[in-house]
């Protein structure tokens, strides 16, 4: 059945469904196979789509009301009792309101709790800063034992949700709010937690991205090839932690120009994770982080905000051109740089 082949979801379904609807549907499938799965939310069954699981398995669903700290504490207790909790609320509340419960009750005790957080980044841009989560990746990746995944689209969300079931320990999967378009058109491209996916080869520069910026970066690479004759590698680093060090270093050695683009603060997210890897390697390269600067995001529809923060195709093209124009030591001898 679907679970074994992993090809249930095609672009046809995915383009009609939001990331969270696909999550809800996949969780229903998983619920059949894994009787230990329990769904939990805090008055956001409808908004996060974990309500689809509630409809199918009402006796395995817990709505704690608007009480996120209680939500994650209860999830920790359920996991301790041997069950497999999937918890959904908005990313801002999972990462900040219940921050200590996630860290101390779940990560410290290394419990098998899967957190699928919706409305990530600035996807709920009109709601303002109380509901925007531009810090969640930074927060979550700082917790020992936590795995952090930011799927590119609905199809990758399906892959990530399936993969996290058998992956031990706490997992945080961040998805968007609305109708983010799909990059992938099928599921069988070899998704593996912790392994970057090279979605375009290139030799002049590397675009590293996750979440909604994957599609935009792929598009930007195409335009830069046509208009500027540039060969741009694109890496989808869906797993921020554990980060794929090998893939990053392969890119650094090949292109020596790295631009990280993410729907997150420039502090502490994928950009910082990649920077850590490069800095620790002792190798040098041109490097640029594109994200939300160290300020609270503006209000607006996500498309407008993505354009403003240069997370869309045009913005990425602009950033790549700037990095290409940067004076940079083209020395091929790496030995002297360590």
């Amino acid at each position: 059945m679907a679970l074994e082949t992993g090809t249930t979801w095609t672009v046809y379904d995915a383009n009609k469904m939001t990331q969270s609807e696909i999550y809800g549907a996949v969780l229903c499938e998983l619920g059949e196979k894994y009787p230990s799965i329990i769904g939990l939310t805090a008055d956001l069954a409808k908004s996060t789509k974990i309500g689809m699981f509630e409809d199918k398995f009402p006796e395995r669903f817990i709505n704690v009301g608007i009480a996120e700290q209680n939500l994650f504490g209860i999830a920790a207790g359920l996991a301790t009792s041997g069950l497999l909790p999937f918890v959904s609320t908005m990313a801002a509340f999972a990462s900040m309101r219940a921050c200590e419960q996630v860290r101390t009750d779940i990560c410290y005790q290394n419990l098998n709790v899967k957190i699928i957080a919706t409305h990530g980044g600035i996807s709920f841009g009109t709601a303002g800063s109380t509901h925007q989560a531009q810090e969640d990746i930074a927060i979550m990746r700082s917790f020992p034992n936590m795995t952090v995944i930011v799927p590119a689209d609905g199809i990758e969300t399906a892959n990530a949700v399936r993969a996290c079931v058998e992956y031990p320990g706490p997992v945080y999967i961040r998805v968007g709010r609305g109708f983010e378009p799909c990059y992938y058109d099928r599921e069988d491209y070899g998704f593996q937690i912790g392994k970057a996916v090279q979605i375009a080869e290139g030799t002049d520069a590397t675009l590293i991205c996750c979440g909604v910026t994957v599609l935009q970066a792929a598009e930007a690479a195409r335009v830069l090839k046509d208009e500027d004759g540039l060969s741009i590698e694109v890496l989808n680093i869906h797993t921020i932690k554990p980060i794929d060090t090998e893939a990053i270093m392969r890119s650094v050695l090949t292109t020596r120009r790295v631009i990280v683009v993410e729907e997150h603060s420039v502090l502490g997210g994928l950009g910082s994770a990649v920077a850590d890897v490069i800095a620790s390697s002792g190798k040098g390269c041109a490097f640029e982080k594109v994200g939300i600067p160290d300020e609270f995001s503006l209000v607006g529809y996500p498309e407008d905000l993505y354009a403003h923060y240069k997370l869309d195709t045009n913005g990425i093209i602009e950033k790549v051109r700037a990095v290409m124009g940067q004076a940079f030591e083209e020395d091929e001898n790496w030995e002297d740089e360590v």
Partner: protein
Amino acid sequence: MPIDKNEKQRLQEKARQHRTDIVNVTEWAGGAHIGGAMSMADILTILYYKFLRIDPARPDWDERDRMILSKGHGGVGLAAVLGRRGYFDMALLRNFNKFKSPFGMHLDCRKVAGVDASTGSLGHGMSMAVGLALGARLQRKSWITYCIVGDGECNEGSIWEAAMSASHFKLTNLITIVDRNSLMIDGRTEDVMALEPFADKWRAFGFLVKEIDGHDFDELNDAISDAREKRQAPVVIIAKTVKGKGVDYMENEVKWHYGSMNSELAQQARRSIEKMHSA
């Protein structure tokens, strides 16, 4: 003092206008938390047109009464009443939710004049209100702090932490009003996470409790006047309300927690509001 007939009619008129403004902004914004804005519309009306000691020309006036909308998703309602009271040009509300707008669904006190705290994450406002009330006491100021809390919001433990401290510190300059519309997002409060016996919970936390009809201006007036006089314990007014109040197709409908309206639905809503208080 009870309100006379003229005063009541004036408030009803203001409330109709306020509800119409909410419908308009919801239409312009492409969606808003309209249900909960409608349920607290009469509460905001009597606060902003009768009780609050404020001066819209001086939003930072130090002596002003403070009003924290702890259920910050009601921002559409707060913005509408602040605009009408003259804090800013109502025309600015056409830009609600739009790119670079000062107005998001949850109001930012650094961007919108008249907003005393940035809220939207539920369960924060009452603690900030306790802080403001303590601040008034410590600085020997006479302002009163009002705080509007959602009933679903009372699931948050932090509300009860705030309540415990309000009563411990004997904050008689704090008036908490719960918009008891009995609905939240996923259903009825009593089905999702039961609050009852709600009044008893507040009493057990040391509050003087008044249970009133939150759409009746006589009752609202008496309860708030009384709360301003009371000087023994913090007061909570549990205002029984109807989510979506005033718009026939929205009343008590959980799906209208957040909604968008096309021009036809908006027109129907405005007609329904016009008929209010006509009986």
